């Protein structure tokens, strides 16, 4: 298999910049694609070539398959990196690339498809002896089926869209009386959001932590796991805010078991490239498979910080047919890493997005600090895309040092011209329960509610 010579990055924002940086270090040429709203974006300036692929709306540009594939062809790109979001988990995009002799930097279309159908994924990983949340085997057939299943697993339950993801299409049901109404709304929402009304029922694991395992697989059947990331600090819309590695409550034995389970899940679908297996961990440290994300993730830098590996470079090497450079035995974890997602959102106003021009920007610096961002002073944040402005990542010899370093960085950072969630990050990191590592996915919502009560 020939090496990759020119990569088209089918994405925007910080992840496009991240991928271009990896390519530059590997002496691989880069092609940026951009919408008319992103003409001044950093990824356009950094790439060797840039092709405008449409107007601002994502469906007409970053989700316009013919324009992206045409851009790859006219620039002679031999590979496409999808980043996260957009076409990163689209089997049809992957197939379109392959049929045009353009390598897709990611897993095969079949693996994306199997993991993309959440109900099917549950069945597949169950047969690979990966523990799943108690619930129905497949999609809900009818009202009777739903009532019977919910009764069997016990309330409260969650109704989830089979094609769902990113926290959308989920309904909580506490009592049997509410089940059928919730089922109807969930199916309508699933149909509207994903085009498929199929739903399944799962037990609600209360006070759970969101812990995910990073895996890598090559095209020769070799797999490793790179440990876990703790991602329980999420806002009221189930969007992750702070991630860290390692998870503060996980012991070496559980880590080993979760890692092995994640590798079994990946192997079961013939996975290759970087991927993430998401688990819920309950108060008794029992873990349950939630879903697999078949792409690079926003929070990948914390894993890079504690393992010393470059996940994007490894994705490029795997796409070129290279074997994994390490076995499980070679992988060790050093220190502690935390990432804060800096977003243009106003936590005081229910995380409403804020757009505008960055009048002043000063990033923090010093030892153990990494910034992944597409921002620069004078850049105008367009209103069409997600509010992520950048990621602030720190490394410390232990969790305590990492927290102190992140607090120091947040205080150093100056972003003027729009509202950001920076102050909320500091408040979370200063919270005694956060510092003790005692939190779950409801932490931010509860903290904001407490603050609201105090203010009232």
């Amino acid at each position, binding site marked *: 298999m020939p090496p990759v010579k020119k990569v088209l990055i089918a994405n925007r924002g910080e992840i496009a910049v991240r991928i271009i940086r990896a390519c530059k270090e590997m002496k691989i040429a880069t092609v940026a694609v951009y919408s008319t709203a992103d003409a001044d974006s950093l990824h356009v300036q950094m790439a060797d070539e840039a092709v405008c692929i449409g107007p601002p709306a994502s469906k007409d540009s970053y989700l316009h398959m013919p324009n992206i594939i045409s851009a790859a062809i006219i620039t*002679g790109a031999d590979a496409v990196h999808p980043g996260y979001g957009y076409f990163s988990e689209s089997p049809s995009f992957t197939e379109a690339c392959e049929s045009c002799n353009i390598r897709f930097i990611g897993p095969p279309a079949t693996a994306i498809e199997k993991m993309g159908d959440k109900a099917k994924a549950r069945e597949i990983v169950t047969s690979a002896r990966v523990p799943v949340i108690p619930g129905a085997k497949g999609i809900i057939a009818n009202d009777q089926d739903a009532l019977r299943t919910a009764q069997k697993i016990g309330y409260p339950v969650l109704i989830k869209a089979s094609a769902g993801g990113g926290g959308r299409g989920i309904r909580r049901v506490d009592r049997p009386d509410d089940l059928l109404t919730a089922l109807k709304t969930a199916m309508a929402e699933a149909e509207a959001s994903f085009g498929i009304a199929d739903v399944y029922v799962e037990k609600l694991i209360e006070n759970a932590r969101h812990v995910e395992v990073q895996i890598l697989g090559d095209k020769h059947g070799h797999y490793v796991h790179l440990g876990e990331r703790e991602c329980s600090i999420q806002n009221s819309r189930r969007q992750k805010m702070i991630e860290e590695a390692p998870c503060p409550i996980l012991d070496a034995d559980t880590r080993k078991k979760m890692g092995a389970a994640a590798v079994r899940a990946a192997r079961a679908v013939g996975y290759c490239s970087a991927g993430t297996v998401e688990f819920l961990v309950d108060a008794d440290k029992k873990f349950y498979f939630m879903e697999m994300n078949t792409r690079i993730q926003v929070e990948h830098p914390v894993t890079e910080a504690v393992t010393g590996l470059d996940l994007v470079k490894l994705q490029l090497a795997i796409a070129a047919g290279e074997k994994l450079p390490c076995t499980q035995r070679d992988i060790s974890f050093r220190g502690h890493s935390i990432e804060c997602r800096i977003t243009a959102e106003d936590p005081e106003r229910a995380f409403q997005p804020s757009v505008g021009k960055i009048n002043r920007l000063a990033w923090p610096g010093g030892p153990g600090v990494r910034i992944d961002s597409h921002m620069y002073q004078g850049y105008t944040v367009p209103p069409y895309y997600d509010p992520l402005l950048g990621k602030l990542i720190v490394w410390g010899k232990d969790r305590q040092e990492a927290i102190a370093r992140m607090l120091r960085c947040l205080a150093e950072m100056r972003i003027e011209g729009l509202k950001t969630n920076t102050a909320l990050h500091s408040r979370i990191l200063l919270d005694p329960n956060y510092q003790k590592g005692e939190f779950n996915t409801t932490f931010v919502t509860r903290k904001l509610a407490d603050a609201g009560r105090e203010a009232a």
Partner: protein
Amino acid sequence: MLQGSEAEELTVAAGELQVRIRRGHSTDWHEAEPLPDSGGVETAVQQPEAAADNLSRISAGMVGIFHPAAELKPGTHMQPGQVIGVIESMKQINEVISPDAGAVREVLVEDRSPVEFGQVLVTIEKGSEGHAAS
């Protein structure tokens, strides 16, 4: 437009419409290969917005390879709805239509050139008589 100049980048603004052309560091554009039919192509042209001056700028509505119509030469008179050329994208041929009547002022891209979204292909002097295509 950038050919024969040292410029790396050129921005043309007219009213609300802004078009930027950027020179690639590599200029070895590859020829289009036949692509599987995706069926996803929607519009062939982006209707240019009214320019402050008398010039109508017709731009590419999609990424692909531009093939001008044979009669597309400076001075040729175009009718509204007349095909000025086609953009080949994903094995589909998409016609680019002139929205205005007028004489062709300039053809900005060569035959079989790769074009990006929003790239100006042709300018037309609105109302100008020109000569009829023979």
